[in-house]
């Protein structure tokens, strides 16, 4: 397979040289999603360069993710947080630069595979040492607070957007690299687990959702604080019914991927709406506080939904023209 096919470059001749050279028309949907993932990695890298990340607040934040986890998980988290605490300036600069490099590496076609592979390894390491597996083992995971941990979604996206065509006739981008069965199973497990997390005792407690919303309002600009404060007020002491509604919606999104395309489209629109709502509930990843290391799970869930959007499969003629 040629590199141009692997990264998803559309046939230039068929589109005209000017468009192929300069326009987004020259990019196929998978390449566009890869670039969107690259943008989020660049954002992550720049967020990691924020002044507060060069202080002991950063290792302190990492150490907090050990809380409630079993010792086998918590001990390495505490060890790495201590290590970072002793060399915070150097290590944080390295972390930021790595994430920036991952984003630019995904953008640069010769390194797209290397960058995606490295992003999987990086994401899994950070999922453990930086996010404590999103609180799954601690019983505190909730879709409202970013479970299963935003960083693991980078790894899932990197695999689903891998530049290979195991199933080129897959009706959605995510199925091309791993096959439609594996892609659909991944979707089902991810969104199904979000539904399950929504029903955990810690998530369905009366004040759980409203507390998370209130936290999201702290340090946020007035318009976002207004949204989160009013939503928190409306859901105050209504944690159980809100969790049940959220779980039902998440289950519907999870199962819909096996249904006919019109239903899938409707479910993906719902997934995008849920992703946006969760992002607002998360205070847009607390980007405005100066302490955010990533934009939280909302944008990544939205990107994932777009990767499952039903689309025309890649035509064999187009592949032949590119190879």
């Amino acid at each position, binding site marked *: 397979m040629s590199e141009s096919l692997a990264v998803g470059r559309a046939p230039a001749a068929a589109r005209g*040289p*000017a468009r*192929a*050279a*300069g326009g*987004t028309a020259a*990019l196929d949907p998978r*390449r566009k999603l890869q*670039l969107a993932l*690259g*943008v989020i990695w*660049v*954002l992550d890298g*720049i*967020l990691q*360069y*924020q*002044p507060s990340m*060069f202080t002991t607040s950063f290792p302190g934040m990492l150490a907090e993710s050990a809380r409630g986890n079993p010792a086998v998980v918590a001990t390495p988290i505490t060890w790495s947080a201590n290590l970072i605490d002793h060399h915070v*300036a150097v290590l944080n*600069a390295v972390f930021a630069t790595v994430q*920036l490099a991952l*984003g*630019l590496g*995904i*953008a*640069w*076609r*010769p390194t797209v595979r290397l960058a995606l592979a490295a992003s999987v390894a990086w994401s899994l390491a950070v999922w453990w040492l930086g996010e404590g597996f999103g609180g799954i083992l601690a019983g505190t995971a909730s879709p409202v607070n970013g479970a299963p941990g935003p960083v693991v979604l980078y790894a899932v996206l990197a695999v689903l957007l891998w530049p290979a065509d195991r199933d080129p006739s897959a009706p959605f981008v995510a199925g091309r690299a791993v096959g439609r069965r594996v892609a659909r199973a991944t979707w089902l497990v991810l969104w199904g687990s979000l539904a399950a997390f929504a029903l955990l005792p810690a998530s369905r407690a009366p004040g759980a959702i409203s507390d998370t919303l209130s936290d999201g309002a702290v*340090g*946020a*600009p*007035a*318009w976002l604080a207004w949204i989160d404060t009013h939503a928190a007020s409306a859901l105050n002491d209504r944690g159980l019914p809100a969790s049940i509604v959220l779980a039902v919606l998440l289950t519907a999104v999870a199962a819909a991927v096996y249904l006919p395309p019109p239903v899938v489209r409707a479910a993906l629109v719902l997934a995008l709406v849920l992703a946006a709502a969760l992002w607002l509930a998360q205070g*847009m990843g607390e*980007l*405005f506080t*100066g302490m955010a290391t990533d934009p939280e799970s909302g944008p990544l869930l939205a990107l994932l939904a777009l990767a499952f959007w039903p689309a025309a499969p890649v035509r064999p003629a187009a592949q032949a023209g590119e190879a």
Partner: protein
Amino acid sequence: MGGPAWLTGIFAAAMLAVAVYCTGRLIAARRWRRPTELDTDGAHVVMGLAMAGTLVSGLRTLPATMWEAVFAAGAAWFGWRMLQARRGAQPTPWRSSHPLPHLVECAAMVFMFLILPASAAARGISMTATESRFSFLTLPLALFLFGYAVWLGDRVTLHAPVLALAAGGGSSTPHPARRHLAPRCAAICKITMGITMGYTLILML
């Protein structure tokens, strides 16, 4: 600015390097009659100087109001170029054929200078847009600039003539024999500018 001094110093040095390089491009293009985006290179010269001053107070050259006027004029120019392109005007290799990103860059510069309090600017302390009623613009501007940088990163691996078309030439050129002046270096300058400007905006969140 609020970042560690060594980090903002690196970004400021990168901005000065972009300004110097783009000045060199303008001179080389005139001397060798090789096409380059005169408006983009010119904008990056002044943006590099202004950004360096924003990042490191010791490198400040002009007062904020003057920079606002300069970049408002730049935004007007690129806006006019956009209108021309929409009306189907013949593209030229000497001007940007993709004025939108540069319009956004100029708008971001005006935005930064407008919300940067004069007292904070004078003392080089951290600034924030959170209290500003235009705070909702900060994140979209930063994301647009990161998106532009990533898009250029994708384009930069295309072979040079195609990149020249993508970067500034369009499909018809008055001097087909003359190759575009170092299109990959121009793209790298734009990426550096986009990332640094995005960093500055993120510091203002």
